[in-house]
């Protein structure tokens, strides 16, 4: 069964390009060009996965996430952006997106990422893995409420490092002699830490960009 996907991007040209590229690998149930349209379309068509552009007028992807995520927690969001800027990506992940890819991603990789997100997994681009490693680097950590969320385990760090080096989950599993399922669990845990951590690097990023 193919995944039901909603495309949200303010450029109609990009939406039609993605739709054509994905072909029948996924079931595109709708498109939206503004956050308001997107919120209405998500409510009416109930997709499994929303491909969400980070930069749009009227609040961007963040506005959609903030409006929908608490209301419909089963809908998964995959952030899609031309920006390599850490703060954009981190803001969407912290608001609940399950992954992040850049717009230059190949159609095959995008289809795989959508399937993965629909199946409950998370998607890390090498860049996002790099951000995570940067944010959780072993610099002095301010005393925090819950230290569990404020550092990565050595295994999680290894997984992130391999992701940043361009490894796919399957290759990581082979490299570390663990199952793909375990790799996915590590990745999910890292994403949760990214969302819940009070590490000062993350909060500082957010505060600097007035995202709090």
């Amino acid at each position, binding site marked *: 069964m193919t995944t039901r996907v909603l495309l949200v991007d303010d450029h109609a040209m990009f939406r039609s390009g993605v739709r054509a590229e994905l072909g029948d690998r996924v079931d595109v149930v709708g498109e939206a060009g503004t956050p308001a349209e997107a919120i209405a379309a998500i409510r009416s068509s109930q997709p499994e996965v929303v491909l969400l552009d980070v930069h749009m007028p009227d609040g961007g992807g963040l506005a959609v996430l903030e409006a929908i995520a608490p209301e419909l927690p089963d809908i998964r969001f995959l952030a899609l952006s031309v920006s*390599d800027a850490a703060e954009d990506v981190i803001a969407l992940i912290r608001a609940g997106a399950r992954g992040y890819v850049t717009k*230059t991603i190949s159609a095959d990789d995008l289809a795989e990422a959508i399937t993965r997100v629909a199946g409950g997994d998370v998607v890390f681009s*090498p*860049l996002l893995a*790099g951000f995570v*490693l*940067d944010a959780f680097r072993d610099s002095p950590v301010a005393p925090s409420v819950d230290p569990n969320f404020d550092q990565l385990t050595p295994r999680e760090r290894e997984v992130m490092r391999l992701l*940043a*080096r*361009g490894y796919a989950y399957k290759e990581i599993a082979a490299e570390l002699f663990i199952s793909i399922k375990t790799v996915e669990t590590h990745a999910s845990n890292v994403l949760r830490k990214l969302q819940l951590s009070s590490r000062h690097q993350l909060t500082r990023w957010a505060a600097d960009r007035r995202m709090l």
Partner: protein
Amino acid sequence: MPGPCAYGDHGVVSTAVPTTRTTARLFRRPGSWRPAGVAAGIAEHIGVRVLLVRLGFIALAAAGGLGVALYGAYWIVLPPAPDAPRSRVPLWLEYLLAGLAAVAAVGGVTYTMPLSGVFAPTLLACLGGALIWRQATEPERDRWRRISRTSLSADHDDRMGRIRLAAGAALVVAGGAIVLARANFSAIRDGLLAVVVTVVGMALLTGPWWMRMMTQLGAERGERIRSQERADIAAHLHDSVLQTLALIQRNSGSPREVTRLARGQERELRTLLYGSRTASGQLADELRVAAAEVEDAYAISVETVVVGDVALTDGLAAAAAAAREALVNAAKHAGVTVVSLYAEVEPDAVSIFIKDRGVGFDLDAVAPDRQGVRGSIIGRIERHGGDVKVRSQPGSGTEVEIRMPLQ
């Protein structure tokens, strides 16, 4: 008789912008037998007869000398009308008259006003200062301007600023002490009260005007900066983006070339939008520049991820150069369009990984005389105390790992 606001109908040349209502400006109108032309200018401006204005000045002069002062002030501040003929009084005579008037004024002030004992010395000091300023060379003036800019907000290393702050404070304290020690308090109170009332009155009168001027200046400056930036961006877009688009149209048959052009342009725009990434002596920038060069030269895209940063050393420069060589190898031989470059600064070493999913090769089968991997990568790194691991198998891509210890 036209009112004071009449404009354009009595020959006064206006320099105002033509799109706004031309307002008549007040000029002096020196003529052949009136060297100043103050009264004539005012008369023309408000549209009354010259004689009336003159009578007004004389009346004011009789009532306490205000007329003389006003006349002098007008003479000084009003510009002569642009079309006015030069007066026939020779220039030296004007200077002589002005000098005599100045001496008379100084003398009058010195002998009539309280505190007059310091007036003449102060004036002389000002004149001397002005003379020094006029004689100074440009670098000297620059230095004076610089050191006079900071006092209260002086840095720790700004010695002049601190000295001046201390001297100023000492003078204020000393002045206050002298006043307190020898002054007659009831007289001072009246004087102070008068000064305070005057100052408050001045602030009320001119405050809005100052505010408006400051706001206007700020707005004007902002507008100038904005238009400057707009011009810069327009120039940039024209030079690079439009050129690239033209090239892409001409190369539309070659997807590889189009990708290369688009990628290079994308990088350039990013640099414009998010700040420059040029060679700065930092490892991350060095690697990004190397990746960009390889992208441009070989029409591939390099997914660059750098975690942490550190200043370049000889060893790290060699590592970056080796990484560049590994990228070039991947671009030339792997047969892929995407190569991953990952670098991480660890506490004791820097690790750099270059990975592709291309054809791969058998490391043992590479001819020993091939310079690429052995010379430019392995040899270069080992000379600087690092080590290189190459992992490759035919059909499953290649990964080069460079590790360079930090001294």
